[in-house]
């Protein structure tokens, strides 16, 4: 027996066994394995990509500038307090990313800059304009992205999705993958809702309040805003409440003049749940201790006034405060359906996003398409493999059978390798496997043709096989490496499905080097070692 055949056989059997162990979780057999096996042996196998099992892949951009804007607005508000406490004479206004003080006297500047060293002056004259320093702005954006990630995680946890993938990408993007989800539209809404809950006082006392129309048609908001711009007090703003007539279904908008100052925010909530009032769902909320105290203070100071409950810039209701409210309970009504109320309670409980999200990409795949794709992939794989297998036997006879054995070995090892890496199988990935099957026999073809050359030159089968292998080796190696180079590039630059293709193709090609150079050769050696072979079936 030729030296090393036994060792090579052990090597091949070992790798096949290993592949089988890794691939086992993908077969129905895994269920019936003993407990210790399930616990200690590989249990993950190959996972299906979103395109095969259905689900959504979303890319959001956290609008970091908005987070900086919100911080700017908050600083401006607190500066107003500071200025008035120090009895300084200055008006503080904020617009977008800028804060302007009407006075640039030394005292005012000192008061502002001592309180907020992060502000840097951008324009100085009789007035002075500040913006948040670039370094601080970047920190705010970064932490906004972090917070958004955390909030989205919380929301998805409460929504209940098995094995979600949520991660940051680049500086300000968040990638969310939800496999196997049934109601993608609802999930997108829950993730994307900013859910900034604010309580603001309605300014019915301002003289201009009486001039504002009680109701307008939807779409006329801009007209109203333009009409009253400059007429309303500087620290007021106009927000809109949506009202739907229960009987007619007609939608109207109600402009409401509110103070810009936010009395309370959703940060102080500890609980939000759906309740029913005569069959109509509403969301009841409970504040934490700090929030409850603040809520009591606000309601005590503003009895008989109206308090607007604002969610993402839209007024949901503006009830009159009849008595001071202690205990920290509040509610949001708004003609909700049961599901809307439930989703709202989820986002309120999980907390607000620090800045709005902008959807950059949405790939939604329904479960039936995935099943169809898998079926099509299986069919194409089986037919493709059969065509190749039959062709090899017809063309190379017994040697073709050997090549086909190597091909089967190739497929087993490929599946095992993918399972051991917990690789994700995508539709292009299936195409990669099928292409790799076609390429796998290439090495054998190259070798067999070389062996035929040698036989034609009059060499004995054993010498022909050996020198055929040696001569074909570098050709096979070179042709595989070029395919591997492009597969590596695809892996580096590709997105989900294409990465899947790169993984299967490169694994397939790499494993092929092993099956062709070790697998086929071992079988040949075995046949040729048994007896004095005069003729080779090739």
């Amino acid at each position, binding site marked *: 027996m030729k030296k090393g055949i036994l060792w090579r056989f052990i090597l091949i059997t070992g790798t096949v066994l290993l592949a089988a162990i890794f691939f086992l979780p993908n077969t129905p057999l895994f269920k019936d394995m003993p407990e210790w096996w399930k616990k200690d042996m590989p249990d993950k196998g190959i996972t299906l990509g979103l395109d095969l099992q259905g689900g959504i892949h979303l890319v959001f951009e956290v609008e970091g500038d908005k987070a900086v804007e919100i911080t700017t607005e908050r600083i401006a508000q607190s500066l107003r307090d500071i200025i008035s406490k120090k009895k300084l004479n200055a008006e503080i206004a904020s617009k977008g990313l800028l804060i302007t003080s009407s006075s640039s006297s030394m005292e005012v500047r000192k008061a502002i800059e001592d309180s907020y060293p992060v502000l840097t002056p951008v324009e100085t004259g009789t007035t002075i304009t500040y913006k948040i320093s670039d370094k601080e702005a970047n920190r705010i954006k970064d932490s906004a992205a972090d917070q958004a990630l955390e909030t989205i995680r919380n929301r998805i946890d409460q929504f209940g999705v098995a094995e979600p993938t949520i991660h940051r990408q680049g500086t300000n993007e968040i990638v969310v993958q939800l496999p196997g989800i049934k109601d993608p539209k609802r999930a997108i809404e829950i993730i994307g809702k900013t859910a900034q809950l604010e309580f603001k006082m309605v300014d019915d006392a301002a003289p201009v309040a009486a001039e504002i129309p009680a109701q307008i048609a939807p779409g006329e908001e801009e007209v109203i805003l333009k009409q009253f711009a400059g007429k309303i007090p500087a620290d007021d703003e106009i927000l809109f409440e949506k009202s739907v007539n229960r009987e007619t279904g007609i939608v109207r908008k109600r402009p409401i003049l509110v103070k810009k100052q936010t009395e309370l925010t959703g940060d102080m909530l500890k609980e939000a749940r759906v309740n029913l009032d005569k069959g109509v769902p509403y969301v009841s909320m409970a504040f934490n201790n700090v929030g409850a105290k603040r809520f009591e203070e606000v309601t005590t100071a503003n009895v008989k006034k109206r308090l607007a409950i604002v969610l993402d810039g839209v007024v949901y209701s503006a009830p009159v405060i009849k008595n001071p409210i202690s205990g920290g309970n509040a509610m949001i009504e708004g003609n909700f359906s049961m599901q809307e109320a439930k989703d709202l309670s989820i986002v309120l409980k999980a907390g607000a996003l620090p800045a709005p999200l902008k959807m950059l*990409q949405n790939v*939604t795949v329904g479960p039936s398409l995935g099943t*169809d794709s898998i079926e*099509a992939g299986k069919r194409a794989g089986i037919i493709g493999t059969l065509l190749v297998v039959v062709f090899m036997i017809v063309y190379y006879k017994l040697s073709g059978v050997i090549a086909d054995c190597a091909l089967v070995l190739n497929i087993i090892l490929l599946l095992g390798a993918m399972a051991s890496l917990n690789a994700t199988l995508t*539709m292009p990935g299936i*195409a990669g496997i099928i292409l790799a099957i*076609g390429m796998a026999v290439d090495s054998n073809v190259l070798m067999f043709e070389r062996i035929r050359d040698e036989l034609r030159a009059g060499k004995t089968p054993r010498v022909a096989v050996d020198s055929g292998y040696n001569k074909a080796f570098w050709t096979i190696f070179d042709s595989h490496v070029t395919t591997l180079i*492009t597969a590596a590039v695809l892996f580096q630059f590709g997105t989900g499905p*294409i990465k899947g293709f790169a993984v299967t*193709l490169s694994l397939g090609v790499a494993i092929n080097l092993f099956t062709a150079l070790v697998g086929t050769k071992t079988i040949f050696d075995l046949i040729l070692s048994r007896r004095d072979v005069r003729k080779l079936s090739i």
Partner: protein
Amino acid sequence: MLELIKNTKIDFMGKRKSAFIFSGILLIIGIIAIIQIATGRANLGIDFAGGTSIQIKFEKPVILHDVRKALEDSGLKDLDLQDLPTVNKILIRVKKTEQNLGQTSDAVTEILSQKFPGNKYVVDSTTEVGPKVGGRLRADAAKAIAVAVVGILVYVAFRFQFNFGVGATIATFHDVLAVLGVFYVMGHEINLILVTALLTIAGYSLTDTVVVFDRIRENMKRMHKEPLESIMNASINEVLSRTIITSLTVLLTSVALFFFGGEVIHDFSLAMIMGVVVGTYSSIFIASPTVLILRKKKAVAKR
């Protein structure tokens, strides 16, 4: 021994003029395609151009024209519809939407529910790509192609003599451009999946070229007294059957994918089929003749 091709003595090198003319036309079409893609005038997929693509499966057969009319009457523009009548599926693409993501797909499903009340449907898939992601994917694809080509060039130059490296690279470029050009002329979509196929073709088309070059290198040692042209002819004839058979096996699996692999990878398999055919052709008619011409130029220069 079953042999497809036996002891051929075809004068491949002598046919290089006709081959160069044929390939020249392919290359020009390919270059035109690249210019059109770069200037945004080609049929770019929504992953590159941005937009919305919705695949809808109806319960009962629908007429494509009716769907188009329903959508256009409701004010949707830049529509591109395609149907798979055997499975009652319709693919709707809306390019370059100005609206926020999500609105177009909502609008489409709303219109279909209204206009086809008796025919229930399920949304098989929705893909929405904003302009920012589209731009990034375009840049990534261009980068990927550049890196792959450089990688292959470096490897082949390292393994073979420089002239052979140039010949192999030109043949590879030729294959990629030819498939891209044909896709462009056929009006098929240029998308990420096609770029994947092109890169795979680039990697694979070298297999045949390497087989031929290997034999030429070997024969150059053995037949060093013969002129290069006849060494090349002899080498190509010697390896002709394996060049064709290796391509044939990949072609078999590509054809299986094309006919049975489903719509997701239909264009991918089509590109692979073309790529394998063109790759085999170029390894015979383009790669070696290019080396020959480079050598001749050098010889003339030396004189």
